[in-house]
């Protein structure tokens, strides 16, 4: 028997368009009640995967399960899904009421119940007074709320959203993000959310799936993926990282030394060395915001200070992004600004704590 605690399950799913493989052997679960995000650059196969789950695209190989039932050959209109698109896709010739009632009509819900459910859905998305309007009489943000209401009113097994916030402007996007998360929690509906925006992905997900070139690079809780990237791609795609080839030194009392090919030596923890599978060829990954800049060297337990010179400063308001040259190599550093940013050309020390030196096995992926 299939595991019924998963709303969606992909088993070895492959999607080919002719010679081109858009999705390569994908294994993935969307647990009940959870918010799962597909994050990756444009063209990595997020939409294709979502469309396979929806039934809008055929699965070339592998099995697709919804609530434990294989649905590879079940057409979309029998799948009981909520679908929300980037461009809202409301029915322009129908009123908001009729838009939301559309799915209920096909579920043979009684007239009175339809009115009640539509009213409730409009309350939920905080637009109780627009039932009689047409979509083009609403703003973009309002239209997207209606699209959401239309998708959830049918109580779908899964809610699928393909970049639903990308068409909105920045402020509205943030507001909708909070709203969407609230509604998802309130209803406890299993949700797959596609985005190429990392802050959206980090803020909303219970589970983050980072995709690249048709494969899953890493999946896990957002903070795990963020703090412990499993590949150079993930390290680089989520935030800004310094990735440097290195060789592991011998472990001493608390830390292991990491000899960078650029000449410096960092320290790392046992938790990290455990990932290198015995090899001493590694890459050190240090996030830009995990490096502390200061005028004086101030090394404590497990902290290394590397001297360098500030090459450029990007002033970003609350924080600044620096490029620091040390031993002919440029490091990216993001630090909060205390009073005023460090000056271009200043001599500086980069402080890196052992717990912030993440290791990837091998010199290359």
């Amino acid at each position, binding site marked *: 028997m299939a595991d019924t605690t998963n709303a969606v399950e992909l088993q070895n799913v492959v999607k080919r368009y002719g010679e081109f493989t858009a999705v390569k052997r994908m294994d993935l679960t969307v647990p009940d009640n959870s918010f799962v995000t597909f994050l990756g650059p444009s063209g990595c196969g997020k939409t294709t995967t979502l469309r396979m789950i929806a039934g809008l695209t055929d699965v070339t190989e592998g099995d697709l399960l919804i609530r434990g039932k294989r649905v590879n050959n079940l057409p*979309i209109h*029998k799948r009981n899904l909520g679908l929300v*698109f980037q461009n809202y896709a*409301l*029915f322009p010739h129908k009123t908001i009421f009729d838009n939301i009632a559309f799915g209920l009509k096909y579920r043979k819900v009684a007239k009175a119940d339809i009115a009640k459910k539509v009213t409730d859905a409009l309350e939920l998305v905080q637009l109780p007074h627009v039932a009689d309007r047409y979509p083009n009489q609403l703003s973009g943000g309002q239209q997207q709320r209606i699209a959401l209401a*239309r998708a959830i009113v*049918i109580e779908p097994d899964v809610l699928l959203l393909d970049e639903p916030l990308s068409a909105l402007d920045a402020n509205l996007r943030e507001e909708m993000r909070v709203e969407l998360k609230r509604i998802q929690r309130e209803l406890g509906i299993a949700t797959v959310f596609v985005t190429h925006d990392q802050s959206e992905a980090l803020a909303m997900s219970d589970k983050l799936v980072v995709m690249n070139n048709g494969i899953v690079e890493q999946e896990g809780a957002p903070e795990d993926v963020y703090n412990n990237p499993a590949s150079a791609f993930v390290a680089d795609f989520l935030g800004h990282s310094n990735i440097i080839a290195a060789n592991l030194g011998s472990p001493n009392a608390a830390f292991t030394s990491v000899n960078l090919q650029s000449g410096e030596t960092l320290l790392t923890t046992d938790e990290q060395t455990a990932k290198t599978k015995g090899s001493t060829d590694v890459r050190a990954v240090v996030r830009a915001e995990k490096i502390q800049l200061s005028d004086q060297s101030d090394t404590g337990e497990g902290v290394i200070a590397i001297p360098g010179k500030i090459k450029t400063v990007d002033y970003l308001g609350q924080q600044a992004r620096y490029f620091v040259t040390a031993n002919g190599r440029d490091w990216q550093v993001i630090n909060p600004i205390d009073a005023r940013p460090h000056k271009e050309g200043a001599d500086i020390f980069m402080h890196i704590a052992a717990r912030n030196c993440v290791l990837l096995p091998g010199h290359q992926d």
Partner: protein
Amino acid sequence: MSGWSMIRIATILVYLFLFAPVAVVILLAFNANQFGGFPIEGFSLRWFEALWHNDAIVRAFKTSLLLGFLTSMVSTTLGTMAALAMVRYDFPGKRTISTLLVAPILIPEVVLAVALLLFLQALSMPKSFGLLLMGHVVFTLPFVVLVVQARLVSIRRDVEEAAMSLGATPVQTFFEITLPLMLPAVMAGMLFSFTISFDDITGTLFWKPGGVETVPTQIFAMLRNSISPEINALGAVMVIFTIALPLIAASIARVMAMRKLRASNRKTQAA
């Protein structure tokens, strides 16, 4: 004189050249005198009355109406289905078929007329009203296909996908979503094919069976004997008919849209 005012004058002259003869025909249709010419001697509707009592003309008018109606029905149905196939599906030979569908616009009508005639002779089929209808369908079809295609391209696929995700079958989606959204184009195609069929003469002359006349072929036949003022009246009727039909359709569409909008505004205000 600036370039723009020259262009304006040239434009006015071209339109005068195009429309003055039509105006003359319509004016002379109301002339009381038997022998058409200016100045007009008195206003009269006698030529319109004469039309009404001319059996041949009334018969031709009925034939034209029937032919136009059937042509627009068949053409619109086939053309809409073809446009759907072209825009919504991928299949081998799509480009070729697409070119063939609009080819009748590019080929001179005479060539098309002769080709169809020869083709049917090769099949040893006699001329018939059915053949005439078929001919009209062939060369009104491209207009329907082009108009409906243009509209379909602008109907987003994700609207249909949303409908299906909500439980509508593909057929239900077509009738609930796609068809209402492309209806203006379908209506336009229908009007186009009706008017084109209604005043076609070249193809009709080749294809019509003996004894069957449409309004244009009837006028043509009458012209061979004499230029009777009745022809002016018939011309006026045709002009008014082909201009009024689209105008009436457009204003009906506008009134319906306004009523819908007003109803929704009223409800919004009441809420």
